[in-house]
């Protein structure tokens, strides 16, 4: 059954890339340019997985994670943070915010698909 994945990143290129990488999984992908927009989108429709950048204008990935966790229907939705290797403290923060896991940028499509299939088994 096809699920909906929301990708959140202020870089259009990155969102496109993720969407392309996820194509083989057959899931629908919706996009948001920052945390605030993602939160609006998440409220207007239920998504099954959130893949979000950490550093974004308006609202970053960590705050988005916290906000989403406060919404009952998102209490258990997996949230994957996209991070860079220069942010080791992020893991602590991500965990505290309630994220499910992380993917280090740059990543390759197989890794992304592997992570997605673990949290969203068909």
């Amino acid at each position, binding site marked *: 059954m096809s699920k909906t994945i929301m990708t959140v990143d*202020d*870089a*259009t*290129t*990155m969102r*496109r*890339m993720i969407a*392309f*990488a996820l194509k083989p999984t057959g899931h629908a992908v919706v*996009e948001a*340019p*920052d945390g605030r*927009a993602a*939160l609006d989108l998440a*409220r207007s429709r239920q998504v099954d997985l959130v893949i979000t*950048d950490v*550093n*974004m*204008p308006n609202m970053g990935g960590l705050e988005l*994670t*916290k*906000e989403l*966790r*406060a*919404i*009952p229907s998102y*209490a*258990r939705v*997996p949230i994957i943070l*996209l991070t*860079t*290797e*220069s*942010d*080791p*403290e992020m*893991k*602590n923060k*991500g*965990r*505290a915010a*309630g*994220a*499910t*896991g992380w*993917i*280090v*940028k*740059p*990543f*390759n*499509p*197989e*890794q*992304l698909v*592997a992570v997605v299939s*673990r*949290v*969203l*088994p068909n």
Partner: protein
Amino acid sequence: MKSSLQQQLIADFLIESFEGLDQFDQDLLGLEQGSADGETLNRIFRAIHSIKGTAGCLGIQRMEKVAHVGENLLSLMREGRLKANKDIISTLLKYADALREMLRNLEQSGTEGTTDHSALIARLQELQGEPSVASTPSPAPSSAPAPAPAAAAIATPETVAPEAVTPPVSTEPNPPPTSAAPTAEEDAAWGFFSDAPAAPAPSAAAAVESAPISATPPTSSAPTVERETTSRGSIADSAIRVDVGHLDKLMNLVGELVLARNQIVQHIRSSRDSAMLPVAQRLNLITTELQEGVMKTRMQPIDNVWAKFPRIVRDVSQELGKVVRLEMEGRNTELDRTIIEAIKDPLTHILRNSIDHGIESPAKRRAAGKSEAGLLYLRAFHEGGQVNIEIMDDGAGVNTARVKEKALQKGLVPPEQIARMSDREACNLIFLPGLSTAEKISNVSGRGVGMDVVKTNIEKIGGSVDVQSEAGQGTTIKIKIPLTLAIIPALTVRSGGERFAIPQVNLLELLRVESGSAENSIENIFDAPVYRLRGKLLPLVFLNRVLSLEPPDPSTLTSLNIVVLQADGRLFGLVVDSVSDTEEIVVKPLGKQLSGLTCFAGATIMGDGQVALILDVMGLAQHAQVAAVERTAVSAKTEEAQTDEQTRRQTLLLFSVGDRPRMAMTLSEAGRLEEIPRAKVERAGRREVVQYRGQILPLIRVAQHLPGGGEDPIADPMHVVVYSEQGRSVGLVVSNIEDIVEDAVRVEHRISRDGIVGSAVVHGRVTDLLDVKGIIREAEPAFFES
């Protein structure tokens, strides 16, 4: 070979990164000037962070590496561990330039280029080495090979992972993983938090263990609700990125539609098909709205160009050891994107010039009793369908004596002319090719090539430049440019049986010399025909001679039509056989075979479907060798003359008749303005009349007495201008009363066409003056008889 997807991704990446770097520059300057807020440093950091992340995924490794070094420095700044100073900001600006260069290389050749940035990278590392190094966060060690960048893998799935990206600043040992974050499974590239749901059905225990994950919303959700009410749609919802090519195509199509509209409207008007008239009118209206709408989508704020100026001003003034404060007003003034492109270089040049030649060194300024910081003030605003841009400085002003001397020295202007020149005219000499007054030639404003190119480039897009200066007080350069280039108002003229369109921006006035006086008023000076216009000599150019067309048959020639034109500082009269209407025309470029012709700017399709060439007024003047500087003088004096003798301030009533261009009559001719319900109109014989103040008021439908005639649909109530004389009144029915303006009527000439007594430039637009008496005489022959 790169896949089209990767090309698309790289194209997106380029746009995004260029934009990000522009903002980066601005934010750094803001930081330097102390106008930064808390978000500024975040934004600065994010710009580089995004470039790094995306470049990594796209497999652009050198870029990623360079971005990484900057990110480390910015990370320290963001955390407050490193304070910005002039040195850091200068280095970061250079750093942004280096990234830009790589982006440009990527755009042009597909690789980042080979420029060696090691010195810059070393400098960046040095800058971050200054604070306590031990606290610098270091990147996680790449124990596993770096993942193959996503896009590279997309392009060629079999590609082996490229060499690991080794972070350049990982000299100090990595902090041991915090015990608080044990991970259940991970490799270098990804992982799950042990206590977070790694599978869709997490155990209840896990959910309880991880505090933020809770089935019941915690109390902290209250602000969420509040935010929901205030949350606004994101930019992504309200704006989309559109390919410029699409917009150009749309504009082209609208142009075609305008042409078709002109043809239909003209056809229907001449066929007097009353059933089709309202349809034509609606088509007319919708086309105009569509045209405006499409033009709007192509509009960009001038800030797109200006945003780069703070950086330029900073660099140039530092280089020259000057202190300059830049102020801008009207950053949101919008222009067509083609024009934005065209003014970028001229404006930049003027700016550099103002700092170099205009604003003095701090020492000189102090001596002159001015503040050390020079002011550079940019202003943009819309006026009369044009955009005005002003660049003001409070510097030394143009040294007119020096300019004259230079011009003389270089033999650019004859001595006698220099002697007669006013200061204002002398100022404008700076636009002459080959004139440079800088005592020293500097890198900044070049070697005397420049201001003439600025002028040519601005005139190429139908604009004009003027400079005013006061010694010791400063210089103001004023630029006027049209809003768009694609659809312009133009005057149609005839010569040798052909029709030509003349862009209205070049049009100064229309003259008609009756044949009796024509021979007398045209004189020859050194074989060049001139006309004495208000005591000044106006060189004449005969269009049929220039283009080798048939001369008009002398027997039918009753008068001489002179179109007074201005371009490139030249003023001349173009002699044509006849003058027709003004019309919105769509400029079509000429084919390659014809583009070398200097006299034509393009072609257009007229209302009747025929093609007409658009005259290039500047080219014509050059072709006919009308002297340039001499004309500048004449034009300035003509303006004075006009102010003295010709220009009378008049109050005009502006109105419209059908879909014709706006018309005017003097308010003194308009007795009263009335709105009369159509139901009150009665018929007396063939005449339409209404009862008005106890009299019978005959109505005249103005449309029927204008060229093209027709029964333009009349509004209900009807707009009626009541004309009274000797106790008698007559009502002129027009479509709409638009405005009453007081304006210096610059032109008033007897171009007698049906129902029109002449034309005047009112608020920058050529407006036909209605021949009120003529129309009344035609409709009510008995009216003026006593």
